[in-house]
């Protein structure tokens, strides 16, 4: 009974395709309504809801297995989702398995992009919301708090978060390897397409402030610059002003080379001591390949970035076994700590239920009618 008292049910990207996850995703208002509904479930003493784009999970502590089923039913009813269909894609873990799952999720081991750290913040937010709503208690408090410590331990003692696995973030990491920080770097974005925009946003999210956009159609450059809080520059000025920038993101659809070896050499004459980093994400390429031969100039194209991202992904996967061993050890220890509480809670609830039943029976007997 004690193992069943702690549960996690829900669904994740492993079991549900995007189209299904879209239907199951909780809006803020929906989450609040569901919280109220779950709070009214008899026997459900503690619960927390983790709702991200890749998973909807309900962590709970209950006196009976029936409580978990009622959580599922309330969720499906709220989302107008077929309960039978939900059963087919449902994750349902109990006791130590539920603890281990929470630790794996928090450490990013269960994420679509293995080792990503955003999920850690999302789990913390879910726990904070449950705490604010007064739906956590001694068991979930301990499980979540110790789980956060375990996740941090995994991240710091393994290479699971090392190396970026998306092309845009690889570009940012390369820039950090060259410049140390991005706060005082000047970035030029050549091309106003989606790829360049993504990379520019990745740079901005890591502290880059001085961003200039240049596109063959100036109005598009203006639009993107406005959207990004950047400045725009006429495309024709790129050669003359190249030396002003530290990082150049090239993502145009131009059929020919738009940054030549001679142009870069001339630019480096004006700023010989500062490195110049080209990220050529265009196809066909925007930057003449021989630019890489110039001292203090670093050139990475789409294949280079993709290869590094893939190498990092493989390296993270290689760390998974090590991470899982740590998580299992920590989860088992944590379960041993909370199991008596879960059992005591279940026993107390069962006793309450028996006592209430007896009282009801007695009241029934004493009733004149």
């Amino acid at each position: 009974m004690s193992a069943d008292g702690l549960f996690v049910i829900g669904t994740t990207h492993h079991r549900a395709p995007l189209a299904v996850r879209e239907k199951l995703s909780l809006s803020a208002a929906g989450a609040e309504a569901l919280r109220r509904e779950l709070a009214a479930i008899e026997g459900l003493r503690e619960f927390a809801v983790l709702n991200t784009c890749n998973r909807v999970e309900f962590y709970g502590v209950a006196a009976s297995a029936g409580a978990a089923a009622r959580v599922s039913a309330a969720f499906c009813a709220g989302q107008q989702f077929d309960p039978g269909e939900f059963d087919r894609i449902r994750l349902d873990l109990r006791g130590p398995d539920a603890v281990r799952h929470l630790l794996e999720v928090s450490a990013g081991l269960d994420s679509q992009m293995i080792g990503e750290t955003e999920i850690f913040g999302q789990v913390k937010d879910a726990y904070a919301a449950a705490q604010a709503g007064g739906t956590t208690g001694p068991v979930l408090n301990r499980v979540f708090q110790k789980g956060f410590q375990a996740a941090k331990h995994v991240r710091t003692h393994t290479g699971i978060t090392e190396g970026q696995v998306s092309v845009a973030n690889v570009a940012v990491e390369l820039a950090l390897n060259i410049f140390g920080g991005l706060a005082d770097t000047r970035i030029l974005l050549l091309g106003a397409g989606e790829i360049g925009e993504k990379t520019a946003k990745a740079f901005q999210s890591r502290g880059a402030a001085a961003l200039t956009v240049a596109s063959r159609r100036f109005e598009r450059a203006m639009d993107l610059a406005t959207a990004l809080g950047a400045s725009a520059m006429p495309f024709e000025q790129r050669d003359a002003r190249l030396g002003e920038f530290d990082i150049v993101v090239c993502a145009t659809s131009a059929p020919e080379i738009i940054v030549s070896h001679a142009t870069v050499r001339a630019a480096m004459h004006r700023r010989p001591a500062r490195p110049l980093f080209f990220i050529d994400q265009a196809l066909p390429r925007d930057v003449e390949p021989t630019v890489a031969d110039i001292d203090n100039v670093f050139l990475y194209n789409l294949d280079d970035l993709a290869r590094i991202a893939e190498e990092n992904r493989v390296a993270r996967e290689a760390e998974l076994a090590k991470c899982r061993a740590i998580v299992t050890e920590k989860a088992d220890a944590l379960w041993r700590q909370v199991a008596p509480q879960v059992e005591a809670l279940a026993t107390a609830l069962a006793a309450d239920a028996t006592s209430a039943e007896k009282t009801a029976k007695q009241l029934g007997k004493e009733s004149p009618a």
Partner: protein
Amino acid sequence: MLANFTDRTWLWAAAAFYFAGFALGTVAILRHGRPSGPATYALILLGYALQLAGLGLRGRAVGGCPLGNQFEIHQFTAWSAITLYLVVGVTFRNSLLGYFTSSLAAAITLLSLAIPAWDATQRTHIFGSNPWIELHAALAVFSYGVFGLLSLTSILYLLRNYSLKSKHLGGWFSFLPSIRDLDQIGLRLLGAGVVILAASLTVGSVYWLRDTSSVNVAKLVVTLSVWLAYVLAFGLRLRGLLLAKRFSWACLLLFAAAMLSLGPVDRSRHRVERVTEVRAR
């Protein structure tokens, strides 16, 4: 028992700790891990304390800063580099710098201990009663320590440059600092070394002007050449004419030349006095 340790025993122990820092880092790298910054720092710190004890004993025995032969000069150079590392290494926050520093210190100290000829002649009171000459010599050798650390950052720069150019960023390359940080640190170390050596030469020149026959011409020429070469490198770097890889290679070659010059400089000095191995009291 410690009181019976000779100065060389302390210095062997110090070298062992420096070597342990190098060994620890090597094992970590071979296991595809990062050398432990705190562990390396602690080993270097222990080695530094032992080396200080050894040099202190030697200094007391020779009646001044122990710079009387090649053994002492090499030991003092390593000690200077470590002194600087212990100060700047904390802010540098890079475990690889500690690894390379312990490697350099182990190499220099073990080499000096392994060549008995370098310590066969021990000179006492080489600075007479003139503390300025002692300061001049101490500053000169300390600047060599700074240049030693500069050579290490140059190696780190070359490795980082290679990793970025060849697009090999995984493994222990990922522990390297950014190329711009390394360039800035290299420039500052070069500036500091040039200034310290200039201060040393300024102090020495006052003494030399009083009595030009007191300084061997070979020593004067070699020391000035080393300083001028570093000044030239510094000037060219500031003017943007010696940059990136070439700057790092220049710093490495200059340090190699500076270390190689220590032999001729030492041999050119007059032999003063022979003493036997010094024991702690």
